[in-house]
């Protein structure tokens, strides 16, 4: 674990410095004199050799200090503490819906091939890969907000006049529920509906596809056929199929979960969410070194964590994987 974390820190550090352009120049503005720029550089420590910069950064990180974002004027850590849960809330809800619909839909399709559900899921699986998520978001906004007036306006996570609830997890839905603030909770829900729906549609594609294929392979397998030959009861046959069908589905879920942390940026933009991906976008454009580093590190650590969970799931399901 530790060497990987160290590697991630180093790579984030180096990657950011590959960006051409000088953050000091960006910060100073167009009217700055060379002296101003030099002064900013000294303040940021950019005039030091790379190795010194890296160790300084590492030392600070270990103490919880990820530097400051010059663009937002906040410590990067506190920016991330707001942005990360915002996106996490979004993609987690979207993923939950996609998993439920996808796995159930895929299983039914596999159990009753060429049936009604199978036809729908296979058509959807084909189209899903061609859908631009930002367009779907706009489509949903047009239908449900502009025409039907059901959903809330796509301008962020809450109605403007409502205060954000006290920060327990950073996820407004959970926080408002925990503190019993029902008005905020309802507002959060109505603002979450459309972007979550958009993300579910996007995530449903690959999950459905993999569930269908994986379950079908399991059901067509020799050992499931043999279980039927032995007169095993239905519960046993289904369990046998699921045990081997699950790992590839879990893999795809993990891959997309990590991917969506940054990949949700387009949806975030459409709905004015103020999320993690958007933070990365603006930081890159503004050459906000510490912010970008913080983003890269958190994204990589998140992926690492997910893969760890996946490995544990594998070991539970497949005894061959146990050391």
């Amino acid at each position: 674990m530790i060497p990987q974390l160290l590697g991630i820190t180093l790579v984030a550090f180096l990657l950011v410095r590959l960006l051409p352009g000088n953050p000091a120049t960006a910060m100073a503005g167009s009217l700055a004199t060379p002296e101003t720029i030099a002064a900013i550089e000294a303040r940021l420590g950019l005039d030091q050799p790379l190795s010194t910069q890296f160790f300084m950064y590492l030392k600070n990180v270990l103490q919880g200090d990820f530097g400051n974002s010059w663009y937002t004027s906040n410590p990067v850590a506190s920016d991330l503490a707001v942005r990360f849960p915002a996106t996490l809330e979004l993609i987690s809800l979207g993923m939950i819906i996609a998993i439920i619909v996808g796995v159930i839909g895929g299983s039914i399709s596999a159990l009753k091939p060429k049936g009604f559900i199978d036809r729908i899921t296979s058509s959807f699986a084909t189209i899903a890969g061609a859908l631009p998520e930002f367009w779907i978001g706009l489509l949903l906004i047009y239908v449900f907000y502009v025409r039907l007036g059901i959903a809330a306006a796509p301008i962020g996570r809450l109605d403007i006049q409502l205060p954000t609830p006290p920060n327990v997890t950073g996820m407004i839905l959970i926080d408002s529920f925990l503190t019993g603030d029902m008005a905020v909770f309802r507002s959060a829900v109505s603002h979450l509906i459309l972007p979550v729906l958009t993300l579910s549609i996007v995530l449903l594609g690959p999950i459905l596809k993999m569930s269908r294929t994986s379950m079908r392979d399991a059901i067509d397998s020799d050992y499931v056929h043999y279980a039927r030959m032995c007169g095993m009861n239905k519960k046993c046959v289904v369990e046998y199929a699921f045990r081997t069908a699950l790992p590839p589905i879990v893999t795809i879920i993990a891959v997309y979960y990590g991917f969506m942390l940054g990949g949700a940026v387009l949806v975030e933009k459409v709905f004015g969410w103020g999320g993690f991906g958007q933070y990365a976008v603006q930081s890159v454009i503004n050459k906000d070194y510490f912010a970008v580093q913080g983003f890269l590190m958190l994204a990589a650590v998140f992926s690492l964590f997910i893969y760890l969970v996946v490995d544990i799931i594998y070991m539970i399901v497949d005894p061959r994987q146990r050391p």
Partner: protein
Amino acid sequence: MRGIIDMERLKTTVPGNGAPITEWKRFLIFMRTHPSFTIGLVIVLANLLLMIFGPILAPYDPFEANPAVVRQAPSAAHIFGTDLNGMDIFSRVIYAPRIDLTIALVGTAISLVIGILLGGYTGFWDNWFSTLIERVADLLQAFPPFVLAMALVAVTGQKIQNVIYVIAFLNIPIYLRLVRSNVISVRNCTYVEAAICVGGSKTRILFRHILPNVISSALTQASINIGWAILMTSGLSFIGAGVPVPTPEWGAMIAVGASTIIMGEWWSSMFPGLAIVIAALGFALVGDGLQVFFDPTKRS
């Protein structure tokens, strides 16, 4: 019992008189029996035609902004309506394949070629250079690709060729992995050993014996990837990190339309979006069809 079913899948079509048929004829029969593939093919061809003849077919100049006709709903004069700047959406939508498809095709082609070469190299030779390439490819895939793409375009400047290079660069690992695993599984086969025994140089063996077998799976992957490339290009342009501003590109058009959709002006976002879906779908259908054509045992 299982034997008969498996043989059934592998049997290729034989016409009534039992004579062997050419690949071309098999392709034509395939087109007839697989309507979704044929539809995809039609879409792809239509897009390619637009790519070439788009400017001629456009009723208005796709780059011309006419302030007198801003934000008009679809009508006889402007089939798809006009946008915020007074540009005719229909003309821009049918001009856009020139941009989107060029980027997608060229980008995919570059990543295909480089990916195949690198994949072949890392699969066949086991040295430090091989390992380095693999590690870099792994690293590339660890970071969120969209943000990475955006960063690279922001950094290199918003020009069409940069978008091409970025898309090519990000997709190389896909082909590298594909070809590499194919080469690895094949290199231990007897026919390769035989070729080496007879004194063939490794490079020659790679190109003449191994790669031809791998090409078909790489090509079908490429066809599916072109759809993704179109989506990525439009996504980048939507967020402002893709093609430069007045260029008629589907994603950029949606961005322009996004600001007015709240007021009910659906046409400036919807039509370009539909165009993206149709184009990407076409390539995806062709890709799936090719996969089945080249390897009937893999029907999904």
